C-alpha cells in the first residue's frame, strides 16, 4: 500500500538553528505510528512542519500523493490532516462547544458536523457534561480530551497528536491511549509524538526514535520496546 504520509530528508530551521537535520519517515493508511525522543529532539517541530505551521528549508513531503511543502496550513487541514497541539492549546475563553465547532472550521456540511460532534461527545462523555463551560476552566485531562476532540472535528484522515499524555495523571493517561486506539480502529491514521515511550510504543504499529533532529532507530512498536537503546535511554532500564 502506498504510504499516506511520506517525509524525505526534511530539514527545518528556526532562524539559523537547525531543528530537523534530515527526517525521513512514512505512515501507511490505518497505522498508529509514534515518534519518541527526549526534549529538543525535534518531535514537535516535525509535527508542525507536517501541518504547514513551519516551512522546511529542504526535503520533500507528500500526503496522499500531494506535495505538502507548497500547501498552506489551512489547505492541509482541508486535505484531512489535523493536529492536537502540544500543551493543549484550547481556546480558553470559548466554551467547550465553541472549541469543538472551531475544530470543524474547515468544513461546511452542517449535518455532518452535528453528527461528528455527537460521535466525539460519545467518545469523551466528560466533554458532554461540560459543553457550555469555558475551556480555560477545564481540568488538564479534560482540556486534553477537548484538544483531541477538536482535532477530530475536521474529520481527519491523518490525526497528529502532540504529547497527549503530558501532565496527566497515570489513570487518565491510560484512558487517553485507549481512546487513541478507538479512534484508530474507527479508521483514522494516527501519528503520535510522545515522551511516555512505554505507553506510546505499546499501542503503536511502528515507531521512530528521534535524537537531536535525526531519526536514529525505526522498527515495530514491540521491537522498539525491547531494543537496547530505547530501554536505556527512554524507559530508564539498565
Amino acid at each position: 500500500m502506498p504510504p499516506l504520509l511520506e517525509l524525505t530528508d526534511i530539514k527545518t530551521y528556526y532562524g539559523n538553528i537547525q531543528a530537523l537535520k534530515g527526517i525521513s519517515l512514512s505512515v501507511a493508511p490505518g497505522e498508529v505510528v509514534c515518534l519518541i525522543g527526549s526534549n529538543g529532539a525535534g518531535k514537535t517541530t516535525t509535527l508542525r512542519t507536517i501541518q504547514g505551521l513551519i516551512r522546511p528549508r529542504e526535503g520533500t513531503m507528500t500526503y496522499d500523493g500531494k506535495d505538502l511543502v507548497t500547501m498552506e496550513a489551512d489547505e492541509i487541514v482541508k486535505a484531512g490532516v489535523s493536529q492536537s497541539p502540544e500543551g493543549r492549546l484550547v481556546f480558553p475563553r470559548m466554551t467547550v462547544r465553541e472549541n469543538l465547532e472551531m475544530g470543524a472550521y474547515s468544513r461546511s456540511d452542517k449535518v455532518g458536523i452535528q453528527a461528528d460532534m455527537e460521535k466525539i461527545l460519545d467518545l469523551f462523555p466528560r466533554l458532554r457534561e461540560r459543553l457550555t463551560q469555558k475551556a480555560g476552566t477545564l481540568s488538564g485531562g479534560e482540556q486534553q480530551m477537548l484538544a483531541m476532540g477538536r482535532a477530530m472535528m475536521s474529520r481527519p484522515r491523518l490525526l497528529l497528536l502532540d504529547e497527549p499524555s503530558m501532565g496527566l495523571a497515570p489513570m487518565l493517561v491510560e484512558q487517553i491511549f485507549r481512546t487513541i486506539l478507538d479512534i484508530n480502529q474507527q479508521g483514522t491514521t494516527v501519528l503520535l509524538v510522545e515522551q511516555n515511550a512505554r505507553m506510546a510504543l505499546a499501542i503503536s504499529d511502528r515507531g521512530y526514535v528521534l535524537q537531536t533532529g535525526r531519526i536514529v532507530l525505526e522498527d515495530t512498536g514491540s521491537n522498539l520496546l525491547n531494543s537496547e537503546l530505547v530501554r536505556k535511554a527512554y524507559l530508564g532500564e539498565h
Partner: protein
Amino acid sequence: MTHPVKVGVGIGIVAAVVVLLFGGWSAILAGIVAGAAAALVTEGQSIRDRSATLRNGVISGAIVGVFILIAEIVNDILVLPLAGKDPVFPPFTLGPISIPYNMFVAGLAGLVLALAIGALTGWINSLPDKNRRLGLAILLLTFLALYPALDAAAGLGWIEQMISIMIFVVLALGLNIVVGYAGLLDLGYAAFFAIGAYATGLLLSPHLCNQSGFNCEFYQQEWSFWLVIWIAAAIVACFGLLLGAPTLPLTGDYLAIVTLGFGEIVPVVFRNLTTVTLTLPFTGICIAGCIKPLNVTAGEQGINPIARPWVPVVGSFQTGEYIPWYVLILAIIALSIFFINRLRYSRLGRAWSAMREDELAASSMGINLVNTKLMAFAMGATIAGLAGVFYASYITAIFPSVFDFTVSVIILAMVILGGVGNMTGVIVGGLIILLSDRVLLPQLATLLKDTLNTTVVPHVESPAVKDFLTVSVDPTQWRIFLFGLTLVVVMLVRPQGLIPNVRRAAEMHPDEDTWDLPLSIQQADAATQVRSVDRETTID
C-alpha cells in the same frame, strides 16, 4: 452597583451636573435619558423578575428625577445669578404646545419623565426575552426619532454636536472590529478616515476635475453622493488590505508601531500631493499632469467645496439644517451595526476570535491567518471610509490637519473606555466621552467665566490674581488633561471598560471572574469557578 438606590444616585448625579450647567428645559432630555439609563443599569439585580424590575425602574427613575428637580432649582436661584444671568428661557414649544418657562415646571417635568421612562424601561425589562428586545428597540427608535424635535423644543441646540459625535461613533465601531474582534492593535486608524474623506473630496468636488480638462458634471449630479459613498468605501477597503499586508508577520507591540507609522504617513502624503506628474515607468510616456503638474490634494488649503447628498422631497442637504444629516448618520450607524453583527457571527467572526485567543491553535484549525487578518483591516477600514465620506460631505471641506494622531487616539480611547469588543459599550462610551468633551465642557467654561467675571473678579484687589482668574481658568484648555485623567482613572477602576465584552473581560482579568456583569453571566461563571480552582491540577 446594581442596587436601584445606588444606581439612581449615581446616574442622578450625572444628570444633575448636566442640568446644573444648562438649566432651562434641559431637565426634560436629562430626565428621559437618565431615567432609561437608570432602569437599564438596575436590570442585572433582578433578572426576569417582573415586579422587581418594574420596581427597580421606578425607584431609580424617581431618585434620578429628584436629583434633576433639585439641580434645576439650584441652577435657577444660584448658578445663573452667580454667573450674572437672568434665569429666563424661551417657552418649550413642540407643535401646538407652548409652555412658558418656570423652574418648577421644568424640574417637575424632568422628574415625571425620569420616573415614567424609568418605569416603562423597567417594565420592558421584565418582559420575556424576545419581547424585551423588541420593546427596548422600539423605545430607542422612538427616542432617536423624537430627539431632534425635543432638542429644538427645549432650545438646547445639541444636535449639531451630536452629528459630529456620531461620526466618531461610526469610527469607533469600525476600530472595534480590528481591536476588539481580531485583537490587532491599530494606532493609525484615522488614516482610513482620511482616505475615505479624500476619496470623497476628489470625486465630489470640482478641484481635481477642473485640472483634468474632462467634462466636470459628475460631482454636480444629484445622485453622485449615493454612488460615491460606495466607491469611497471600496477604495478605503483596498487601502485597508494594502496597509494591512506589511503588518502580517507582526503581532502586538510591533504591529501597533507599524500602524502608528501608517497613521503618520497618510496625512503627510495628502499634505504634499500638490505637484504630481505621472509617467509610465521605462517608456517615459506621460499619463497625467503633463502640461502642468496636477495639484491633487491642494495641501494645507484643503479641498472644497464638496458636494452634498440629495434626496427627493428634502432636496440637497444644507449646512445648518441638521435633521437630514442626523437621519443620514443614524442610517450609517444602523448599517454598520447590522453589518458588523453579521460579520461577528459569521465564519470570519469566529476565525477572528480564535485568532485573538491563540494564533497557533487557530492556524491548526485550518484558519488562514493571512486572510483573516487582512479581512479585519479591510472591514474596519470600510467602516472608517463611510465615516470619512459623511464627514467630507457634511463639513464640505477637508484639510490634512484634521486627521492627525490625536484622532486615532480618541477613537481608540472610545473603544477601550466603552468596552473592547462590545458594540453597545463602544457606542455608549463614545457618546459619554465626546458629549462631555464637546457639550458639557464648553458650557462649564462659559458658566465659570461668567461667574468669575461677575461675582469673583470685582472683589479681587491684586491685578495678578485678577489676570490669572480671567485668562487661565478655562476648562476648555484643560480638555487634553481631563481626557488623560479620565483614561487613567477608568483603566485603574474598570480596565474592562464601561460595558465589557464578556469574553474579552475574562482575558483582562484571568483570575477574577465576577464584577458588575449581568447576574445571569455571573451565575454561569460561579458554576465554573469551583472547577477553575483546580484548573492547573491534573486530578480528575
